């Protein structure tokens, strides 16, 4: 008789049946379903397997049983450490919430020398100083910033074109640094700029204070200049030159770029991606227009429908995947964010896909006029005359702003895990709540999901990403790298 017991002895508790752990399932395609647990781990299974699983008939000897046990969809008598691990993963996913507001946007001016028809912030012509932030407003806003308990504080300068009011940027940077000498937060700065009016002096200042640059680049020169007109028609030339100057002074990775999709972009996704590669960017964020500001007034927002954008997106995604297979390391950032939610225990801080919604909890906006908004989109809406998400002004107390019903109501109502249709959706762990968008489109914080473009677009992307990973192990490897970027 051996001193060692056979595997069967250790498998015997598996004969006592199993408990289901909380999970949701949604059709992926044809016969297949996506199952996801509360921490975003997913499993693709056939309909008969899902039926077997839910009827407690899945045989412990099957590969499906082993996978589902390993991924914490079921619990058998042999082990219950899954409960501890799930709890830890839930805490990890929600950890960011406990930090409270980390991103603080300062609209230092609404003036801009560009005249983009799709402008979502409703810029003003660049000679009206009525639209500049004053030092008094900035100081009060800074006091509010440092009331946030977040150990990480990022101050982002927005416009208009914020560099048109660079003295105010300097005032705020210095005010923040002075306050931080005591507050000791992990403090960072970003300027969202078209780089058209950048100067050597501005760059030297940014270098000194480690200020990151985020710019706009819509694609090749013809497309970019058509989307982003300015006097001289040289927006693209200035952006490209600006990117080089930023890299020369601040460093290669100190400039990032975002693109906006217009009707003219739809057939050009490869050109757009090639432009980013040519400019030595490591990735691109393929981004649709949002229903705010001039984009609505000029009908640019309505110029293409959701399926056209999805075709654009997936054409681009597949092209980028091909590039990766050929050894070019290049990331699509929307996919990368979603893949982090799918393939890692972490929760990326991406403002468009968070639940509870990002409003207030993730970001606050201090407008040039002293108004405080719950998000960048909230102030875009306000410029259109809708003050729903105006929490108050910089004269209000921090507690009043953050505890106002104007914030708490949309947060609570839109929370995806308890929203109709979202609460039963297997993609909920990857999705977000966007009360501002749904209020703008459907006059309701929660939104009617069957007719929501937000829902339609995101579901298509979730399905598209999972199908691609399931079909091709090489894509799975590429995606894993993106997820852990």
């Amino acid at each position, binding site marked *: 008789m051996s*001193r*060692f*017991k*056979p*595997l069967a*002895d*250790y*498998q015997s*508790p*598996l004969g006592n049946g199993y408990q289901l752990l909380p999970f949701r399932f949604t059709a992926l395609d044809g016969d297949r379903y996506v199952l996801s647990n509360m921490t975003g*781990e997913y499993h693709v299974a056939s309909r008969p397997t899902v039926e077997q699983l839910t009827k407690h008939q899945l045989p412990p000897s099957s590969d499906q049983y*082993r*996978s589902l*046990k*390993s*991924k914490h969809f079921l619990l058998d008598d*042999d*082990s*219950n*450490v899954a409960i*501890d*691990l799930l709890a*830890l*993963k839930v805490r990890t996913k929600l950890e960011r919430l406990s930090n409270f507001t980390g991103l603080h946007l300062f609209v230092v001016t609404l003036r801009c020398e560009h005249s983009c028809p799709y402008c979502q912030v409703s810029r003003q012509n660049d000679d009206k100083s009525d639209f500049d932030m004053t030092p008094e407003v900035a100081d009060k806003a800074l006091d509010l910033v440092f009331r946030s308990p977040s150990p990480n504080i990022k101050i982002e300068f927005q416009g208009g074109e914020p560099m048109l009011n660079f003295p105010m940027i300097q005032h705020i940077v210095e005010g923040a640094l002075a306050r931080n000498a005591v507050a000791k937060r992990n403090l960072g700065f970003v300027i969202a700029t078209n780089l058209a009016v950048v100067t050597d002096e501005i760059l030297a200042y940014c270098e000194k204070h480690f200020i990151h640059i985020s710019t706009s680049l819509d694609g090749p020169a013809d497309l970019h200049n058509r989307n982003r007109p300015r006097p001289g028609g040289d927006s693209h030339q200035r952006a490209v030159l600006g990117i080089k100057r930023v890299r020369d002074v601040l460093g290669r990775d100190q400039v990032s770029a975002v693109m906006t999709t217009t009707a003219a972009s739809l057939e050009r996704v490869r050109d757009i991606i090639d432009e980013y590669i040519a400019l030595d960017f490591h990735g691109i964020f393929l981004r649709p227009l949002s229903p705010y500001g001039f984009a609505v007034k000029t009908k640019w927002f309505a110029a293409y429908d959701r399926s056209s954008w999805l075709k654009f997106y997936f054409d681009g995604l597949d092209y980028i995947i091909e590039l990766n297979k050929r050894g070019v390391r290049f990331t699509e950032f929307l996919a990368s964010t979603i893949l982090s939610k799918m393939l*890692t*225990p972490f929760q990326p801080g991406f403002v468009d896909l968070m639940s509870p919604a990002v409003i207030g909890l993730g970001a606050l906006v201090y407008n040039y006029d002293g108004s405080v908004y719950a998000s960048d989109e909230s102030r875009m809406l306000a410029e259109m005359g809708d003050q729903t998400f105006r929490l108050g002004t910089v004269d209000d107390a921090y507690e009043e702003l953050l505890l106002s019903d104007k914030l708490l109501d949309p947060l609570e109502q839109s929370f995806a895990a308890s929203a109709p249709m979202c609460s039963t959706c297997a993609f909920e762990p990857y999705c977000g709540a966007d009360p501002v968008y749904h209020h703008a489109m459907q006059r309701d914080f929660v939104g009617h999901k069957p007719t929501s473009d937000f829902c339609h677009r995101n579901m298509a992307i979730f399905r598209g990403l999972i199908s691609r990973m399931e079909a091709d192990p090489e894509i799975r*490897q590429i995606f*894993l*790298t993106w997820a*852990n970027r």
Partner: protein
Amino acid sequence: MLTRRGTGLTIVKGSNATAPRILRLSGDADRPMPLRKREGYISRRGEMPAGFAWYLLIGQSGEPDGPAVAAESAAIFLPEEFAHLGDGDVVRIAEGRGGISVLFQKAARHNSFLLTERCNNYCLMCSQPPRNVDDSWIYDDIMAAIPLVDTGTPEIGFTGGEPTLLGERLGKLVHQCKSYLPRTGLHVLTNGRAFVDANFARGFADIGHRDLMFGIPVYSDLSEVHDYVVQADGAFDETIRGILNLKRFGVMVEIRVVVHKQTYDRLPDLARFIARNLTFVDQVVFMGLEMTGFTKANLEDLWIDPVAYQPQLVEAVSYLERSRVKVSVYNHQLCITDKRLWPYAKRSISDWKNEYMPECEGCAVRQECAGFFSSARLRYSAHIRPMQAVPERA
């Protein structure tokens, strides 16, 4: 294989000798006098410079009358296999049975102290089969040995058996290392089950050792398979909870996975499980099988030619690498290791049991290769062959 212990050796004691059990060695005949009182002299030609506590007479025949030993000293006769002993080595001499064992070799890449032979697991492939004996005396020896170890030693290990069976005494040993070897890393091999007690885990964080790491095995993402490999029901849950507790208190943890026939097919699943649930561990190591101890008894259930599991190993390492978990491969010979794994392969086998096979003759990468455990002669891959110089770039 270097000889590390001997028994039945002849010992001669002076009338007034204190003859300490644990001593540091020196081969320096001009050693300052104050140091000699606590040290052993390595005598290669029978010479016995005055003042040492012990004389280790290598290759001398131990005649019953023996050489004249000073009243305060003692001598032990060692066969030629002990010629490798050198300055700074630490040995234990058991007078009663004429025994010597080498506790620390200054020139070795790795030095481990065995803290007990007892264990609460009974792993199929245990290289150091547990014995249920009262060996609590070992503790005092190690406590005495640690202050004698050279303070420039980069790392030492504690092993077993199961070191945590020492309970609070393990904490005292760790503290001894912190006090006497403040610049030396300490690596403790444990099954981690005892750390299911959060207070026990916290105790190790509280010691404040600068470079303490626990190496803990996880053999499968499935509880029943892990429990089978370690032959202990419920071990998986305790080990995982133990890892969570250690990391909760900020103690470094390495996950060790021995690859064999019972574990290879789910290596990618295990990698995903670790990346998803234990992503905060400090490193993961995949290890080749050591052909000794229980492995010999369970050989047919364990042996798989490493060539056969390279696809699973590549996938597992790649998954962890992409998930930003530090990963290494130990005990694998380069000629049978997928080229993609070479950057992760380490020279991991302790020198005293590290060997190469006849097939390795003329191999261009031998200096970088882990080689074999000396026990590997029992069975090793059929695909071992000398490598040509590696063309780095086409």
